[in-house]
């Protein structure tokens, strides 16, 4: 436990010196502040932020996560020559990245709300979803970096995953709806939603924000099937599973990795 804390401390210090994390936080700060300037009230700013959160957090989590993992190789070798367990090291590496990313996002979005006021429950949901997406995609990024020894291949795979989950997925869902519109699609659609953490986050946010018009097909199905409360709980549980699975798979690989 003490060792994990030591590793986390040095990782955090390393992250604090990285301009990337600061730039990431500033980006959210400028975006949120800008939306306040142009678009009035807190609730509307939250709604406007939804797409930025759904696309930016996975992108940065994946790319920065994989990059950070490749970058930390020297650190890992130094640590593993010391009396440090691999599980502790993995936890330290993960926390050392997920924590600063979450903090940068929370401050970037939270500070403008703090001085402009507003947001309320919608803001808390947005922050929660941002946290969950950060945890999920940092874990996935580590898994990708472990699967590809070659850095260029790994970064390419991370980018493809983001394109797939963030952009192409929606198109595929639409295609399925178009092609099989004559069949009862509710259950398959529901399953599809659970298979993509970004889609799942979108549904979760839109149910909470109560903007049915923006929910799209999967959102409507989801709400119809679960009703609001049960839907949120199911989505939250699924997000937890999405956080745990890549972490567990990554750790299993890490334990057997040859340096």
């Amino acid at each position, binding site marked *: 436990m003490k*060792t994990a804390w030591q590793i986390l401390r040095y990782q955090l210090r*390393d992250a604090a010196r990285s301009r990337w994390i600061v730039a990431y936080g500033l980006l959210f700060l400028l975006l949120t502040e800008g939306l306040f300037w142009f678009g009035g009230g807190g609730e509307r700013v939250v709604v406007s932020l939804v797409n930025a959160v759904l696309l930016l957090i996975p992108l940065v989590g994946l790319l920065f996560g994989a990059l950070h993992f490749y970058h930390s190789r020297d650190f890992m070798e*130094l640590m593993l*020559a010391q009396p440090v367990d691999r599980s502790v090291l993995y936890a330290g590496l993960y926390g050392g990245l997920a924590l600063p990313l979450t903090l940068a996002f929370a401050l970037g979005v939270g500070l403008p709300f703090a001085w402009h006021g507003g947001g309320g429950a919608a803001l808390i949901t947005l922050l929660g979803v941002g946290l969950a997406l950060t945890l999920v995609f940092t874990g996935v990024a580590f898994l990708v970096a472990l699967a590809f020894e070659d850095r260029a291949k790994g970064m390419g795979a991370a980018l493809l995953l983001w394109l797939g989950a963030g952009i192409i997925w929606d198109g595929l869902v639409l295609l399925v709806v178009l092609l099989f519109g004559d069949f009862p699609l509710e259950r398959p659609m529901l399953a599809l939603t659970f298979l993509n953490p970004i889609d799942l986050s979108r549904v979760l946010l839109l149910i909470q924000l109560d903007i049915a018009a923006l929910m799209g097909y999967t959102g409507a199905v989801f709400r119809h099937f679960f009703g609001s409360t049960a839907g949120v709980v199911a989505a939250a549980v699924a997000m937890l599973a999405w956080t745990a699975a890549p972490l567990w798979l990554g750790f299993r690989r890490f334990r057997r990795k*040859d340096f």
Partner: protein
Amino acid sequence: MTSAIELAGLKKRFRRLEVLRGVDCRIRSGCVTALVGPNGAGKSTLIKILLGLTRADSGRAVVLGHCLDGSSGYRNQVGYMPQAAHFPENLRGLEVLNMVRSLRGPGHSEDRELLDAFALGPELTKPVRTLSGGNRQKLNAALAFLFRPDLLILDEPTAGLDPIASGILKQQIGAALEAGATILIASHVMSELEELATDIVFLLEGTVRFQGSIAELKATAGEDRLERAVARTMLAGPR
């Protein structure tokens, strides 16, 4: 004489490449043992297995009485000096020292001999990535000796060091030996090994071609210099 390291039937394969094909050897504690062999003989892989950085596919490795099974506690007694120093880029030398110190835990009296002798003082306040290769290697050496480990594993220790620094390092190796440490040195510089080591483990194509004292190897090969004896054994091929 007890052995600090015992290896039995150690095998390791990377994809199609069979790096270790069953390594059996014992390394006496309280001695300096040279680990030699041509490039690609498996020296680095063997060292990484001893440190738990790499896992053997099969076989048994016992280091300082601990059977290697993925646990990390035994490394508290091991000092490692890698071939090329790898440090996290953004950290300063002092932070690296403090970090490792905090991981080693209390109960180590520190041996600051190398830090002082190398006069690293001012260099320690700079980020490690700005240090010259030689200074990084000095930090690397100082770190390996700092906690008075029972077992020192040095991979090409004098590569990149200037003559004065490598002289200081050799002195330190002598001092550690007198203090009772076991030292394993992988190197291609035979004159240096002849000066420091008494025992030798000779790896060739993933197996141990010879192990014993340096004097024995010389006698077996019929040469009076280690370099020639090693070259001759190498040319003779695996047993």
